[in-house]
């Protein structure tokens, strides 16, 4: 489509249900009460000139350009701050207004560079547009004091700040305050000296608290804040709406293009997950898509000690198929398996699991969700009847108290964090929601500008179940449970059994305090707060799931929500914050070895026969191997071939040395990815992947929202990923003939009742749909379990606290927990290949000052991090964000290999690894460990590619 900027109605929409009818320039318009005259005019097709107003932030009334006249009223009020009223007669264009506007604009332009032709924003500048709109033809003011010629701030890797072009409209400041909630920007100075400042005068954008979300750039009406790419390339000429491939928030963006070149990603105002906002990753960190390290040709080799040899697609795929067949013939079909990726589309994931089940003839398919949210699937299926969160993101606007446990949304889910922060800050003088944070670290949400958690329960890592059971103890024993809700919606007998269990004195906060390290009084107060506010919502992340008791914790959360009646309406619910973009979708698509798409167990003959009839092959009724079981079987010599799409198990899975031993024992490892990732060091066949910009499909976010991914440029590797899997299937003799991913979705909808009403045509029409989409809910389901639980009655499950076997002791006295940072994503394969390294060039070890002092460690020192599994080195950051006895690091950089030290312990129900609890010791170090050096040497050797002589 031809480039059209997004509509800007000037001020935010009113949510009032009352209506007002007024006349603007002789035309009648009816709008919700509280709508500004500016917005009402825009809704009626009248564009009132404006500069300081934009509909992402509240009106400000400073630019004096949007003046109007109203019959019966004196003066010329600003339309952005004047609410529309019944019977109002408004004039937006009169000789008086025209003169005033021209005068105002003349003043603006008198202190603005007149370099429009060579300005980066030429053709996309509101100041330029408005000068035209008001008919400015002359500037009468001559030379004088001005703000021209000031030094630019180029420090941010993605955008420039040119104070000479600033009109002091404050849109950037308000966007930072209201949309992002970081409050990094301010108007420094007074009067003529007023200027935008990022933090202190001594700071630039990069060194300031700015998180580079892009909201200020989006809000800027001039070239003052402008994307470096626009300056470099020029303005876009078309745009395509697509879905971000980073975290599980699922922001939609307009990919703004010039030819096949991406100019910028602009958050889509119509996006129901992000509502026009973005973070540094989705907005700016897409440079990896054209990175020089991308592999664009298929490659093969006989042994992992050999260098790679580039081949054509046909040779690579026929070699892969012949190897898979050879191994199946020699070792049996159970020797084969596949791993789907939460980074890939639903359609790609569906095909990989179909290839394994229908082509390999077994159920040895698993997904990287194994290592993040598999306990969510188990826990919510058991208690509620479906493996998904209960709410949409909008729901948070109605929450009165938020329990945030084991999640760090400002880093992991930043766009949703901004929405949560907005609710916590309150609005128009009304109090915001209360906040309870349960986390071993003092995450940013505990205390951030204008937000302070009412309770931070800094529990000892590994004691989530004990904390939640203690909260349940308080709620039940103090008579705070919602018995009416429980009697109506849940199994009463099961509730009574559970209530008796949690009421036992051994679960009292005072009894458990020595275990959890959470002061009992704080825990009691937090439990009372959660139970007594009208709408209580629980948001959680991998700090819940990645434990020995991950599934128990998810069920304990579900118990708490049911006991307090917080299910089935806006503002409440159980909300897993999904790590990767398509974790929900990967699980929905039957990626787990025991389930067909739609969470139906493989042993269910009726479901199996549905797929068997459609696919024309018998299916194995027994569950297949999970990822850790595949690696065990590989070490045992019975699992020999793996097709791994879009997943880097060597870096992301626990106990790296065990993973590498498993991979090394296989005879055919097929890696299908963008880069030669760490797993590819052990691969025999490399199939180059395509980025989300190069393919069609859908992602499903944490709200169960299915959203289109649209191809905006040709795949540099020649094929979309679904085509690669299809051609591999064809090479193995399967009769697959999909012409477009929409046909794969049609098959998914045909075979999966919760997707029955989903199609690409419907998604194009609606923008997105939240499953279930079926006859009962033809437009999807923003909130689940509204009239009853999917399983019938909600099930209370007794969750006894079974401590992890990973124990601290004299040799390993500290507990390591791991997590993410805002600027990087997962194993960093994408973000490390962008300018985001400016913020986080290496993984750091956070250690409390007491523990650091005991060991003679200062910030910046190299330290050795050792556990029972292995050891690595990294630099220390001494901080009281972590409690004494706890250390923390991220896992974004392969040079650190944090998973060298993580253990083999895992969730009892799902084998989700226990990343969050590892007993470690920290000591001073001079540099890399032997393991790091030998790993680096093996990796370098493994990545050799034979140069093909030019013809």
């Amino acid at each position: 489509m031809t480039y059209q900027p997004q509509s800007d109605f000037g001020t935010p929409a009113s949510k009032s249900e009352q209506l007002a009818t007024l006349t603007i320039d002789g035309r009648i318009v009816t709008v919700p009460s509280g709508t500004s005259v500016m917005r009402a005019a825009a809704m009626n097709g009248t564009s009132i000139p404006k500069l300081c107003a934009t509909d992402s932030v509240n009106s400000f009334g400073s630019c004096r350009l949007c003046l109007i006249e109203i019959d019966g009223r004196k003066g010329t009020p600003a339309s952005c701050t004047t609410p529309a009223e019944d019977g109002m007669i408004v004039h937006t264009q009169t000789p008086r207004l025209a003169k005033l506007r021209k005068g105002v604009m003349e003043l603006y332009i008198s202190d603005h560079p007149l370099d429009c032709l060579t300005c980066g924003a030429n053709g996309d500048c509101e100041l330029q547009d408005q000068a035209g709109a008001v008919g400015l033809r002359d500037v009468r003011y001559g030379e004088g004091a001005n703000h021209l010629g000031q030094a630019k701030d180029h420090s941010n890797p993605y955008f420039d700040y040119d104070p000479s072009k600033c009109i002091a409209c404050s849109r950037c400041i308000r966007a930072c305050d209201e949309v992002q909630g970081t409050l990094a920007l301010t108007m420094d100075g007074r009067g003529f000296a007023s200027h935008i400042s990022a933090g202190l005068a001594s700071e630039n954008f990069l060194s300031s608290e700015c998180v580079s979300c892009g909201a200020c750039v989006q809000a800027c009406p001039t070239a003052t804040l402008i994307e470096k790419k626009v300056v470099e390339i020029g303005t876009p000429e078309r745009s395509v709406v697509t879905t971000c491939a980073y975290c599980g928030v699922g922001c939609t963006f307009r990919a703004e293009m010039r030819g096949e070149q991406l100019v910028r990603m602009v958050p889509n105002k119509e996006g129901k997950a992000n509502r026009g906002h973005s973070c540094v990753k989705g907005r700016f960190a897409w440079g990896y898509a054209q990175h020089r390290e991308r592999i664009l040709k298929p490659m093969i080799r006989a042994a992992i000690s050999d260098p790679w040899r580039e081949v054509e697609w046909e040779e690579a795929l026929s070699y892969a198929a012949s190897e898979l067949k050879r191994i199946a013939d020699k070792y049996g079909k159970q020797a084969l398996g596949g791993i789907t990726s939460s980074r890939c589309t639903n359609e790609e994931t569906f095909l990989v699991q179909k290839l394994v089940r229908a082509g390999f003839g077994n159920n040895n398919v698993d997904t990287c969700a194994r290592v993040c949210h598999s306990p969510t699937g188990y826990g919510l299926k058991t208690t509620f009847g479906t493996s998904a969160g209960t709410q949409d993101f909008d729901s948070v606007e109605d929450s009165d108290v938020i329990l945030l446990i084991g999640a760090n949304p400002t880093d992991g889910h930043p766009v949703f964090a901004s929405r949560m922060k907005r609710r916590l800050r309150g609005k128009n003088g009304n109090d915001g929601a209360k906040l309870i944070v349960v986390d071993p670290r003092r995450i940013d949400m505990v205390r951030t500008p204008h937000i302070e958690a009412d309770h931070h329960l800094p529990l000892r890592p590994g004691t989530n179940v004990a904390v939640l059971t203690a909260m349940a103890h308080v709620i039940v024993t103090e008579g705070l449970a919602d018995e009416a809700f429980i009697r109506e919606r849940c199994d009463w007998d099961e509730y009574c059994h559970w209530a008796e269990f949690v009421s036992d004195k051994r679960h009292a906060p005072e009894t458990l305090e020595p275990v959890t390290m959470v002061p009992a009084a704080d825990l009691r107060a937090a439990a009372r707060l959660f139970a007594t506010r009208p709408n209580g919502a629980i948001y959680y992340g991998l700090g819940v799931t990645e434990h020995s008791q991950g599934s128990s914790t998810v069920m304990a959360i579900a118990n708490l929500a049911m006991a307090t009646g917080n299910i089935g309406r806006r503002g409440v619910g159980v909300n897993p914050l999904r790590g990767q973009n398509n974790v929900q979708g990967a699980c929905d698509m039957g990626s787990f070895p025991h389930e067909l798409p739609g969470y139906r167990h493989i042993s269910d003959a009726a479901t199996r026969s549905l797929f068997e009839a459609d696919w024309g092959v018998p299916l194995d009724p027994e569950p297949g191997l999970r990822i850790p079981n595949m690696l065990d079987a590989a070490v045992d010599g019975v699992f020999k071939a793996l097709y791994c799409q879009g997943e880097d198990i060597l870096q992301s899975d626990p106990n790296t040395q065990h993973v590498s031993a498993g991979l090394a024992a296989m005879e055919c490892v097929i890696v299908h990815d963008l880069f030669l990732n760490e797993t590819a060091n052990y691969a025999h066949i490399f199939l180059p992947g395509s980025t989300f910009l190069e393919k069609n499909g859908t992602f499903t976010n944490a709200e169960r929202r299915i959203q289109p991914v649209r191809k905006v440029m040709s795949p540099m590797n020649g094929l979309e990923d679904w085509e690669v899997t299809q051609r591999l299937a064809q090479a193995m003799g399967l009769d697959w003939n999909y012409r477009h991913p929409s046909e794969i979705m049609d098959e998914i909808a045909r075979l999966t009742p919760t997707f029955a009403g989903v199609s690409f045509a419907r998604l194009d029409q609606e923008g997105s749909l939240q499953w279930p989409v079926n006859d009962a809910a033809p437009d999807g389901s923003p909130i689940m379990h509204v009239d009853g639980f999917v399983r019938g009655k909600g099930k209370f499950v007794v969750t006894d606290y079974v401590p992890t076997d990973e124990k601290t002791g004299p040799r390993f006295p500290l507990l390591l927990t791991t997590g993410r940072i805002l600027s990087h994503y997962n194993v960093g394969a994408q973000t490390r290949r962008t300018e985001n390294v400016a913020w986080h060039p290496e993984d750091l070890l956070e250690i409390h000052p007491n523990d650091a002092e005991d060991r003679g460690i200062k910030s910046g020192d190299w330290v050795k991090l050792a556990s029972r599994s292995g050891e690595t080195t990294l630099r220390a950051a001494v901080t009281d964000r972590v409690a004494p006895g706890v250390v923390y690091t991220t896992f974004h950089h392969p040079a650190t290999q944090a998973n060298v030290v993580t253990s083999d312990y895992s969730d009892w129900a799902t084998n989700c690894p226990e990343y969050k609890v590892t007993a470690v010791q920290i000591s001073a170090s001079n540099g890399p460990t032997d393991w790091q050096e030998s790993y680096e040497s093996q990796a370098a050797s493994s990545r050799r590619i034979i140069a093909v002589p030019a013809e």
Partner: protein
Amino acid sequence: MTTIERLVYMANQIAANLATDEDPAGAVAEHIALFWDPRMKKLIFDHDSGGLSPVAAAAIHQLAQKQNGG
């Protein structure tokens, strides 16, 4: 940890976490039936019960009998 050691550990861990169920051995047997692949099941069936907790051992015995048509 060898594979059989890991399977014994997993079975015991499942048993510990399902200890409060009305029928712990039955719940453990059902869990293993639903989530373990055939080779894992065979390995634990063939194991001599060494290291297994009483509930885990009972569950595996129960499941083995069921799978063998007993």
